[in-house]
């Protein structure tokens, strides 16, 4: 871990400014991902601005009938919140499917959205990785395991985004609210927050330097049932092989792309009256994978069909 200086922010705008003006600066909130990466020198900030105690840890009703979730709220408290449990069970289920009790007590809403990939080659600093070292190549491509994206991957990167929470938020049509370096406020749909890798996988979101996620806004819950499903090698405390969130007529996938994947084709099929299996197949027609990952297409198709079915029978 490289040396860095540390400051605890007491004012959000000042924090945003401090990070915007210093290319070596990063926000620190829960630290569960950033410190993990700093220990491996995958991240090497020279200055940390701790935003964990800024007043963004609460939850409030919006005028539209939704909820505004503070960016610094822990994953555990968000999942446990009675209004979330009652009205957005898919979000509670998704959060509780991820990480461990200890990690959820520390990780924040904003940090969870901005977590970086778990790709083995991103973590192994002896290997080429375009995300870690632009231009060095993608080692995951052609690797011996079945890891990788099946939607929107590029020759430069097949890494996946492994947040559970973000998949549910995508299905819930949530937005993030940010504070920008010029003092403004910006609203971005969660499904548009993250970028596909294309030729620049090191650029992961459309946030500007220093732009701080202050809240996630959930619109009123959609009509229809909600369901979340996650497949993993171990029964708990493991990254997903595939995740599916369904909220009413909206469907999102996780661990299949560089971003939480909104399954627009499946949604369109459902809207047109297709069966769950037909809707899942409609989305998967757009999936692409090499031989090592073809099983993943089948897995996601089956999981999506089953989860849509489950949501249909949920309240």
């Amino acid at each position, binding site marked *: *871990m490289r*040396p*860095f*200086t*540390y400051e*605890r922010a007491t004012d959000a705008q000042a924090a945003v400014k401090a990070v915007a003006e210093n290319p070596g600066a990063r926000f*620190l909130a*829960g*630290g*569960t991902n950033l*410190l*993990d990466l700093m*220990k491996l020198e995958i991240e090497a900030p020279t200055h*940390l601005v*701790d935003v*964990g105690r800024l007043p963004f840890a609460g939850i409030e009703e919006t005028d539209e009938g939704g909820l505004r979730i503070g960016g610094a709220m822990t994953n*555990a408290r968000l*999942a*446990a919140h*009675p209004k979330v*449990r*009652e009205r957005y*069970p898919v979000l*509670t*289920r998704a959060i*509780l*499917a991820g*990480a*461990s*009790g*200890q*990690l959820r*007590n*520390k990780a924040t809403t904003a940090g969870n959205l901005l977590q970086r990939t778990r790709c083995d080659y991103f973590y192994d600093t002896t290997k080429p990785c375009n995300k870690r070292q632009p231009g060095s190549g993608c080692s995951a491509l052609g690797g011996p395991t079945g890891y990788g994206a099946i939607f929107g991957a590029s020759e430069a990167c097949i890494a996946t985004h492994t947040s559970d929470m973000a998949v549910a938020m995508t299905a819930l049509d949530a937005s993030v609210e940010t504070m920008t370096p010029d003092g403004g406020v910006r609203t971005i749909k969660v499904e548009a927050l993250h970028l596909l890798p294309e030729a620049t996988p090191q650029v992961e979101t459309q946030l500007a330097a220093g732009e701080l996620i202050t809240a996630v806004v959930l619109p009123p819950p959609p009509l229809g049932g909600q369901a979340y499903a996650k497949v993993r090698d171990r*029964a*708990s*405390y493991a990254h997903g092989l595939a995740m599916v969130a369904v909220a009413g007529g909206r469907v999102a996938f996780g661990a299949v792309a560089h971003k939480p994947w909104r399954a627009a084709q499946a949604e369109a099929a459902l809207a047109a009256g297709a069966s769950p299996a037909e809707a899942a197949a409609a989305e998967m027609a757009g999936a692409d994978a090499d031989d090592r990952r073809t099983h993943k297409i089948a897995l996601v198709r089956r999981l999506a069909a089953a989860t849509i079915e489950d949501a249909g029978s949920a309240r």
Partner: protein
Amino acid sequence: MRTTITVNGTAQTLDVDPRTTLLDALREHLGLTGSKKGCDHGQCGACTVLVNGVRINSCLSILAMHDGDQVTTIEGLGQPGALHPVQQAFLERDALQCGYCTPGQICSTVGMLQEAADGWASRETADLTAGISLTDAEIRERMSGNICRCSAYPQILAAIRDLAGEPA
């Protein structure tokens, strides 16, 4: 940099490298070596401590983040001759073998029981709007952030069951 934390009831002011994790601060600067470094990346749970009563991985925090916090480590829960009920249950049920994950398991148990008492759901909770009944499946899921390579899981479950009582 200077940080003041209260550890096991005693206020401590430390002036350390900002890179110092909470875990290393406890172990290397305060001599509290009960919290263990198993992976240093939040993947094993051996470093679990309670911060303001909430269980976290102390390896994935830097000390500076905890200025003003109350930290309870395994040493603060109880000592030989005056063990905490969770420590006593682990001893009696042989819920440990090599013992390296044990401080983390015990701190995690204390935190987990409070989370359940507070009504927090887990992935195993069938009805998110009802109260929590600590079934075996609930306990297993909630304790899955603490790996025991010796695999004392059945005994850990038994120890926690002794404390939690039968599920409602």
